[in-house]
Each structure stands twice: as C-alpha cells, then as structure tokens.
C-alpha cells in the first residue's frame, strides 16, 4: 500500500538555522490561531478557578441563606443563587478547582494507560497482545457502577483528607480520578493498537528494526507520533466525561461530599430547574463547554504541530 512511503522525519522544509523538533513544533503551535485561543481560554479558566479564590472565600461559597434561594443573576449575586441561597459565582470558582483537577488528571491517567497498553499490545502482538486485550475486555465488561458501589461501601466516609494549594480536598478526589482513569482506557487502547497493527509492518519501522533501534524507541519515537490524532480526541472526550462522571460518582456517596461544589454536581442538581432557574445549570455548563472546547483546540494545535503531514491552518 502506498502509505508505506511515509517519511520518518519531517520533510526538509527547514529554514536557515536548523531547529530542533521541539522548537519547530512550538513554532507551528504558535501559528495555530485556534490552538492559541484555546490556550488562552484554558489559562483564563485556571485563573478563574484558582485566582478567584483570592476574592471569594470558600466559606462564602458554602454560605446558605434560604430566604434568598433561587434568585436569578443580580448585582449582588452575578450568577444568581442556588436552592439554598448560596452564591453560584463563588461555587463555580471552587467547583472549578475540583472539576478541572479531576477532568485533567483523569484524562491524563486514561491517555497514558491507553497509549502504553495499546502500543505494547499492537507492537508486540502474540501473547502480550492476548493478555492485554483480554484484560481490556474484562475492564469493559465489569460495570464501573459495580466498582463504585463496592468502593463506596468499603471506603465511604473513611477516606483521609488531602491538602493541596492550601485547600483541603477529600481524598476521594484521588479515588475518583483513579476510578475514571483506570476504567476508561480500553477504548483508546483498542484504537492505538489498531494503528500499531497497521504501522508496525511499514517500511520505516522494518528499516528501523533492521538497523537495531530499540523497540521502545521504535514504539514511542517512530510509531506513536503517527497515532496522535485519536489520542487528542480521546483526551478531549475524556476530560468532559470525567467532569460529568464525578457528579455521578459523588451521587453514589463515594465522591466529593456536599456542600462542596463541583461543576458536575451543580449541573446535576439543576435537573428539576431546567426552565425555572436556568442560571443553576447555565454557568457551570458554560464553563464545562469552554474547558472542553479549549482542550480540543489545544489538542488540534498539538497534533498539527507534532505531525508534520497535517495541513497548516
């Protein structure tokens, strides 16, 4: 097949001073307008969630006043108030810290596992492939709900607290990240494996093997960059999924305990107020959307930057 001729290294469109791969990627990334926009939005979101904490205290975010419940956006409460009169603006700030942490960390765990397992499985084949893929199937079959309920039973209310950046988090944040990360990798692993199955027979891989390149180098330096596209998509989907899954896990009593806000539990708690109090879901929903979109565009830029064959934007 024609694909066999694809170049190992970027073609020589190199300009005067030779640049390293990293420098070249960064240059391409910088030129990628949407990726830069996405990066700016992501930075703003992080500033919002972590910087906002300097202006509004966590006590304020959890301060209830049932006499002003479900008030729409006003000057006093820019994003309105929730069902017990808490300020939604402050809650999106503190909720953002947890949701961004969980979303990004869980997606990273998922992507790393998916890449490593998929790559080894596809490259080595044989019994390694059999063991890893049967394991992936087992993970897909056992419902996550089962693991969650079992863990809720054994760990519910007994997970020690953690202090990160001066804020006390329930240790269950780590549990949530691990559960989501450890159960969602098989999809990516299957996709990466499929790519490896096709690419490992390519001439450039055969050639690299012939000159004695170490397998790990072939896997991660030569083949992996060609599979960056689905990885980026998986990471994007993974972040959104993790932010929403947190709310579900917390609802089972294992995750973030009330009254701690997260974007996920704020949007979930708005179920009965879809039309009567739109501000309950609109603001957290918008923040989740911004997060997902910015990660998507950053990912797009990364892919274009790392993969020289993609068309310049």
């Amino acid at each position: 097949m024609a694909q066999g001729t694809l170049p190992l290294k970027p073609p020589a469109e190199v300009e005067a001073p030779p640049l390293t791969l990293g420098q070249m990627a960064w240059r391409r990334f910088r030129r990628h307008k949407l990726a830069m926009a996405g990066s700016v939005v992501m930075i703003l979101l992080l500033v919002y969630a972590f910087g906002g904490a300097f202006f509004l205290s966590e006590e304020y975010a959890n301060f209830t006043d049932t006499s002003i419940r479900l008030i729409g956006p006003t000057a006093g409460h820019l994003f309105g108030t929730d069902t017990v009169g808490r300020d939604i603006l402050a809650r999106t700030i503190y909720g953002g810290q947890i949701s961004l942490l969980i979303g990004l960390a869980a997606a990273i765990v998922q992507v790393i596992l998916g890449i490593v397992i998929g790559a080894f499985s596809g490259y080595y084949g044989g019994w390694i492939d059999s063991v890893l893929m049967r394991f992936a199937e087992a993970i897909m079959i056992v419902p996550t709900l089962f693991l969650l309920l079992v863990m809720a039973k054994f760990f519910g209310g007994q997970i020690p607290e953690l202090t990160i950046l001066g804020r006390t988090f329930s240790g269950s944040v780590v549990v949530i990240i691990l559960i989501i990360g450890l159960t969602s990798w098989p999809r990516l692993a299957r996709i990466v494996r499929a790519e490896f199955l096709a690419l490992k027979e390519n001439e450039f891989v055969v050639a690299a093997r012939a000159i004695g390149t170490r397998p790990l180098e072939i896997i991660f330096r030569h083949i992996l960059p060609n599979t960056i596209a689905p990885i980026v998509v998986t990471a994007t989907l993974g972040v959104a999924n993790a932010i929403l899954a947190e709310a579900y896990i917390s609802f089972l009593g294992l995750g973030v305990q009330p009254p701690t806000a997260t974007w996920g539990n704020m949007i979930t708690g708005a179920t009965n107020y879809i039309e009567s109090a739109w501000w309950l879901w609109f603001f957290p929903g918008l923040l989740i959307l911004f997060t997902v979109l910015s990660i998507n565009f950053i990912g797009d830029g990364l892919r274009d930057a790392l993969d020289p064959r993609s068309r310049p934007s």
Partner: protein
Amino acid sequence: MGRYVIRRLLQAIPLLFIISIILFVLMQNMGDPLATLGGRQPTRSEDRARLARQLGLDKPLYTQYFYWLVGNDWTMIDVDGDGVAETEGRRKGVLRGDFGTSLVSRGRSATEIIFERIPNTLLLMIPAELITIVIALVIGIYSALRQYSAIDNVVTTISFVGLAMPIFFVALGLVYVFAILFQRWGLPSLPANGMFDPRIGRSPGQLLIHMILPITTIAFISFAGYSRYIRSAMLEVISQDYIRTARAKGLSSRYVLYTHALKNAALPIVTLIGLNLPFLLAGAVVTESIFAWPGMGRLFLDHLGRSDTPVVMGILLLTAIAVIVFQLLTDITYALLDPRIRYD
C-alpha cells in the same frame, strides 16, 4: 486466520470464567436482596432468615457460585428450615443454559425476564446507532475536508455542547422543548414518554412518534464520540502524500476519497463501532428511564437495585459474550481492510 480465531475463542473460555467469578463476588456487595424486598420497611428478621434459606442465600459464597454455574438438581436442599435437606434442587446452572430464577419476581426464570427485553432494546438502540454513525460520517468527513471553516467550527461547538451536558439533561431539555413547550405553543408536540398513547392504541405510527425523542437523545450524546474521531482520522489521511499525489495526478476527489482516504481512515472507525455495538444489547440506562422505554438498561438498573444476582449476572454475561465476539470481529475486519495486518 482460522487458527487465530480458534485461539481467540479458546481464550474466551477462561476469560468468561474469571469474569463471572469477579462479577459474582462483586454482586454480593451490591446490597442485600432481602433487606426490604422492595418495600418501604426493613424485612422482619424471621422472614429474612426464611427467605435466605428458601432462596439458598444462606449458603457460603462458593456454594452459591457453584450452584449458579452447574445447578443444584443433583442434590437435596432444606426448604422448611428443619435442618434436614429434603427437597430436590431444581436449578440446572448456567453451563446448561439456566440463569436461575429471579429473586425479585420469585419463581420467574431470569432467562425469560432478560430475553423478553431484547426486541425493545434493539428497536431503540439500532436505529439510534445507525443514525449516529451516518450523521457522524457525513459531518466528520465534511469537517475534515473543510477544516476550520465556519461550518466545521459550528459543528464542533454543537458536538461539544452534547458532550458537556449529562445525558438526562439533554433528554429532559428535549422533552421540555418538544413535548411541553410545543404543546403550550399549540404546535404539533411529541410525547414525553412511553411507546404509545393508551387512548389511541398501539400502531407503528405511534411507536415511531414515541421513538423520536429517545433516539435524538442517544444520537446527540454519542455523536461527538464518533464524529471527532472520524474527522481526525480523515484529516490524517487526506493530508498524506499519496492522497495529495493522487489529487495532483488529476484523480477526482470523490474517487480519491472513497478508495483511498476512507479505506485508510477505516481502522479507527471500525474500532469504535466494534467497541460500541456490543453495548447496544445493554441498552441505554438513563434514556430508557426518562422515556419509560422497556429496555435492557432499565431491567439492569431495576434488578441491580434489588441485588437480583441471577438477572444481573445474566445480563452481564450476555454483554460479556457480545463484547468478546465483537472484539474478535473487529480484529478480523482489520485484516480484511488492511492486508498488512497479520496475527500469526
């Protein structure tokens, strides 16, 4: 290839066996099936002890698993609680095709309970999956060909709106707009749930109307999961040299697209479809609940909520078999699509 298939099928046996043990053990931690028996009050101690004995739940876990696997019709069990096993067991065990009797609808066979849901589950899930795939293909390909065009960006944003919202939120939003608001505005509105209007009666037309919202919900939610991968796979392929070359040689873009690009982008798409298809059998838990659709997802949830091991295990085993079969089919498809891929 034949040897590979046989090897995979042989691997499936220990896999299913191990998974069934894991699931069975996990199931025992899903709550106590006798705690309330679905009522509003805790079960009396006397009733609990009697039912545990009658249903064999007082036996050690390994015995319960063993009976589940191979049945108990070769032994005697104690039903009246006098300590003497006097009644012949009736269960045949999973290995002989008997999933046991439900603990919830006591006396009903789990197999019957599960299989009566399959038609309605597939009736909802297959059209939803087909529509999702077709729309995702059209949009994914178009987005890739017109990367960063206005339409691409709009579609990207819409698909991420679907991604940023929980499923129930999408479902309830659609119900609010198309059932409640449309009715209020005097427009032709869609039904909020069910499979037909009891005042009109059952008909294919009624069914079709009642399927629109649940299918739209499923499609909207799962759309991004396909279209983003398709878009990125197409982007990868069409930017490659040989496609550029083919285009430069004057081959029409349609021809290039079909024969080269789509074929090479097919691996991730096939992988995705192969990952999703087995779960069609498991239904859509949230969508079925909101739209009152009698599918497998609700059955699973209802019976899991009451720790009904035979029914829950039955559904999970069916799903497990489907997953294993579809992963094998996916791997076979790889080899058909791309002759470079060999497994031996």
